[in-house]
């Protein structure tokens, strides 16, 4: 909640996921930074900004569902029906 510059500029350590992707925050992927060294370089990205975008994305996707229909049917539930 409190903004502290040092903390914001220190992301969690990176873990490799594939040849081209890493992860720092749980369930959040990032490009392998080595791929952004020649033509486009990464911006300074405080942690709050990463988390803001991740959460906004989720909010936006939920909004888009509501925008088109009253509710979303679960495929897992329907598959379960098929198995009965």
């Amino acid at each position, binding site marked *: 909640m409190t903004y502290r510059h040092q903390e914001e500029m220190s992301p969690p350590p990176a873990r490799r*996921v594939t040849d081209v992707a890493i992860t720092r925050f749980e369930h959040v992927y990032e490009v392998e930074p080595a791929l*952004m060294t020649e033509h486009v370089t990464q911006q300074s990205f405080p942690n709050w900004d990463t988390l803001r975008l991740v959460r906004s994305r989720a909010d936006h996707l939920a909004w888009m*569902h509501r925008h088109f229909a*009253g*509710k979303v*049917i679960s495929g*897992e539930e*329907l598959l379960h029906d098929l198995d009965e």
Partner: protein
Amino acid sequence: MTVLIGDPVLEELRGILGPEHVLTGKADRLNRARVPAPFPVHRWAERMPDLVVLPASTEEVAEVLRLADALRIPVVPRDGGTGLTDGAVPLRGGIVVDVKRINQIKEIDLGNRTCTVGVGINALKLNEVLARHGLIYPDDPASYPCSLVGGRIGTSGWSLIGSRYGHTRDLVLSFDHVLPGGRVIHVGDGIGRKITKSSSGYQLKHLFMGHQGTLGIATEATLKLFPKPEAEFSPFWAFEDYDSAYRAVGALARAGVATFAGAVLFDEWKVDYLRRDDEAYIPQPSSVKALVCAALYGYEDEVRAGGRRLLRIARSLGARYLGDEISEGDWAARHDRYATPLHGRTKSGQVVPMSWHCEDASINYTRLPAVRLAWHEIAARLRRESDVFDDWGMFAYTNGATGADYLTEIDIGIWEQRLDDTAWAAWVRAKRDLAAVTLEHGGSISACHGSCREGEVDLVPEELGGGYDVMLAVKRAIDPNNIMNPGKYLLDQAYAEEP
């Protein structure tokens, strides 16, 4: 003819529209000389209009066209400026008529279930209002958040959920249309504003849709509305090879489920591309080579019943359901993941900002596999020639509920900053080759955007055959002075014999 600053035409236009709605600044003009489709940056200024007008009503549009026609000044209609075939880009200078200010909701007719709107309105914004009445206008292109009704009419656009609700041509019932000389007519089925079927006279509605602004300007449209769906179901499935996915998408589309709104097939190239940066596919095992998704809309009981049927079909054809999270997330993201520049990669894998080219042919189901291979081959040739091009993979989307044909899309990344004359020439050649493959397989060059860009447009006369001659005759009859969007669709030929 070009209009120079200080020209008396400017004064007349200011009189018609008010001075603040006649723009002559260079930035005003440069920003209406572009659409998202890739084009060499160093040639940007070649396509500048001389001036821009921002009318607010049908009458103002009519007066502008009357003046332009009398003085033989080219006119280019522009709405959202999201079109991908350069339709809203002036080739001969002149006046850009930017209709975004004509965006009022004039009427919501609950009894006949229609609404009447200015063509500068966006469907998402309209639907925010219609939702209060439990209604929806279901024209859902990937450009849903940004395309506008006038551009949908000007292109006769394609909708992601068109298999259930129809496409723009089915959803727009009628509209006011300003002819090049300034006369205002109303086109629809017959004369009615809200008639959905008529056999009276020629069926002009189709003619005045998809003409890319070469026959005049639509200003106010009456749209067909539906109940906002109670439920949505959008399963995504993974496959271990393209052929199984291809068989599955065909079976799903042909199943005849009433709530079926569309299905999409993603090929191996598309899956590889998604693995670059899509959170849903980065963690997928390498055995995933192709994907299919479907979408259903309607009442909950109907959607459940239809959904079970489709799940059963998919399972019997070797599909693995990817789970609710991916299915829901990816469908809701259907508008947002196309024109993302940083998808671009050099051959060495470095990230570069690329523009998105979307080849959008209509191809019959049985021809999809062959077209796919031929197209990727063309993309591979481009990539071999230059780092400017990148194959972003293919989608095939159902055009209709019976599964006859598909909007078949190859996405090609183009690094516009490096698009020099040589690369551009290679691109135009490739465009022509892509279109030629389409025609060889009995397809149509464009399912949604139109086909007036360099390269593809050369093959339009071949696609339409004798129909193209009719097109020339119609153009000459309706726009005798060739003021409407001149240079598009090779229509200058219509005036060849004139002195």
